[in-house]
């Protein structure tokens, strides 16, 4: 076998990685962790059921990856299927490696100034411990979820290489740092002025309406703005022309998988099976999603005379996103209300940004962004004072409707910080990439489809594709929310 240049450089890469790993492995002189779990079990004989619960819930969250993959592939055109799926593979893979190397340490490590964690890199040393591994796993699948949200928003036009970089940056830095502020003992949840304002607890986000979803949604918004809409998505006058996805079956399959996975996402976030509140969380999760899905369905049905499937699906996910922050702290009836509002937000939110030239393929901005924000607010409103801060002990978390305006204030701060951080860093990231290596494929590549141009593949080679299935004329504007339509169509990237 002749060894060409390329082989050598691939090997070199492997060598470097290998050696790096060796160094890491040998570094930990002090090994204070409990890698077998024997000590942990001795100290807490109830640990097995918690481990089982957290791990299985984590598995379910991991399973949301194919949910996103199917949903995103389904709303994209057949000629971009492989690309969408590859992005999902990449953000879970690169994401977990980045979170392993860096992200986890920044998020859950010993806090420096309540701003960022500082230890646990590569899960080495003390972090080689069953408890730390457990936390890492659960946190990692959440991180990968945030990462994958963006791929659906900016589908069908970004460069693949750019996406690989993006997925590393979000999982190594953007997500973990914000995550630290809420879940890692950072300032939003734990600074004195916050806990004083909230009444014993600062800003909260039970399972991540803000930490995971709004972060993903607003980075997606930044990406959409900097990329610009797909070719053909708007008329010259800026009117949107829908570009239907290639498989409704995948869309619905993906949505159901997400719904299923969310039962790991929300109830699992107790991080303990001894919190029996998990049953109420499961109920709330179901009801919010159902109410939101049906609200979105009836809105389209009323408005257009026909029940729209993609909006219904978006509605279901929007309800799930919205209840995520509050799921442990509200009663079932409130979940229904939160879900109904989510259904309105997702419909009108989508139409609102669409009129403004934001070509969000999967609807990630209204679904994850706006409803993530709504979830944080809803928690500040509806928390009913029956459950504590991830514990059955006091102080019980109560919102505005239950007399705690201060906590509502905390949530309000959290909403702004969340948006500023996610949109700000996301914008910066895509802006730098845009002006260095570029973020968008050429128009020819986009027309040919990213499958061929980026991956040299046809996703369904045994079937006859029909490009002209693409709609060609808008008969009437369906919505007049947006007045000042800017001519954004086709100018991106």
């Amino acid at each position, binding site marked *: 076998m002749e060894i060409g240049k390329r082989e050598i450089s691939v090997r070199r890469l492997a060598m470097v990685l290998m050696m790096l790993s060796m160094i890491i492995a040998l570094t930990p002189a002090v090994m204070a962790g409990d890698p077998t779990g024997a000590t942990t079990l001795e100290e807490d004989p109830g640990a097995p059921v918690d481990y089982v619960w957290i791990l299985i819930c984590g598995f379910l969250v991991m399973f949301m990856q194919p949910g996103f993959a199917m949903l995103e592939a389904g709303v994209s055109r057949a000629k971009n299927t492989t690309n969408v799926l590859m992005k999902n593979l990449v953000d879970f893979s690169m994401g977990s490696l980045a979170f392993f190397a860096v992200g986890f340490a920044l998020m859950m490590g010993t806090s420096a100034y309540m701003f960022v964690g500082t230890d646990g890199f590569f899960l080495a040393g003390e972090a080689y411990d069953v408890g730390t591994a457990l936390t890492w796993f659960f946190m990692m699948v959440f991180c990968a979820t945030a990462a994958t949200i963006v791929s659906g928003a900016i589908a069908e036009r970004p460069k693949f290489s750019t996406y690989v970089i993006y997925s590393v940056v979000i999982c190594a830095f953007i997500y973990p740092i914000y995550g630290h502020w809420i879940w890692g003992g950072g300032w939003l949840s734990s600074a004195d002025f916050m806990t004083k304002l909230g009444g014993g607890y600062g800003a909260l986000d039970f399972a991540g309406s803000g930490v995971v979803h709004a972060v993903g949604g607003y980075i997606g918004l930044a990406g959409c703005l900097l990329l610009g809409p797909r070719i053909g998505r708007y008329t010259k006058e800026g009117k949107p022309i*829908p570009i239907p996805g290639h498989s409704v079956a995948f869309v619905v399959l993906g949505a159901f998988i997400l719904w299923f996975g969310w039962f790991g996402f929300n109830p699992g976030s107790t991080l303990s099976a001894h919190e029996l509140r998990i049953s109420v969380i499961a109920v709330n999760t179901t009801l919010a999603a159902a109410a939101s899905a049906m609200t979105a369905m009836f809105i389209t049905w009323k408005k257009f005379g026909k029940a729209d499937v993609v909006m219904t699906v978006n509605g279901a996910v929007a309800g799930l996103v919205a209840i995520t922050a509050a799921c442990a702290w509200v009663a079932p009836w409130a979940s229904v209300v939160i879900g109904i509002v989510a259904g309105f937000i997702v419909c009108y939110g*989508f139409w609102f940004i669409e009129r403004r030239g934001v070509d969000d393929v999967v609807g990630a901005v209204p679904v994850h962004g706006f409803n993530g924000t709504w979830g944080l607010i809803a928690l500040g409103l509806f928390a009913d004072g029956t459950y504590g801060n991830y514990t059955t002990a006091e102080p019980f978390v109560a919102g505005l409707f239950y007399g705690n305006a201060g906590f509502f204030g905390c949530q309000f701060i959290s909403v702004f910080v969340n948006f500023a951080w996610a949109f700000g860093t996301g914008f910066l990231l895509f802006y730098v990439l845009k002006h260095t290596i570029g973020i968008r494929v050429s128009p020819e590549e986009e027309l040919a489809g990213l499958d061929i141009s980026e991956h040299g593949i046809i996703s369904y080679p045994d079937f006859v594709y029909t490009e002209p*299935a693409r*709609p*060609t004329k808008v*008969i009437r504007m369906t919505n007049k929310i947006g007045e000042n339509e800017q001519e954004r169509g086709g100018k991106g990237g």
Partner: protein
Amino acid sequence: MKKIEAIIRLEMLDDVKNALEADNIVSMSISEIRGRGRQKGAKLMWRGDEYVREFVPKTKIELVVRDEDAAKVVKIIRETAYTGNIGDGKIFVLPVEEAIRVRTGETGEAAL
């Protein structure tokens, strides 16, 4: 020989085929096309945005027949593909100069 190209509604294929068969016209080819004419395309929706799919799916039947059969075939198709509504389709007749059966090498009308 004539080539008859008939563009008909999807759901009429069965009837047309059976009627032709009843008259001993068995050989034919069909394919999927999409067309526009008087008939407007369906109004469709995607996430609440409406649009028109301008081309309507139709079935195209192609048969090469003997000159003397052409009129008969046209008549059969015309009658069985008829519903009276816009979008019933069209039949075109084109001249054919030669026909060859691959299996036997027969040419001309013997090949049909």
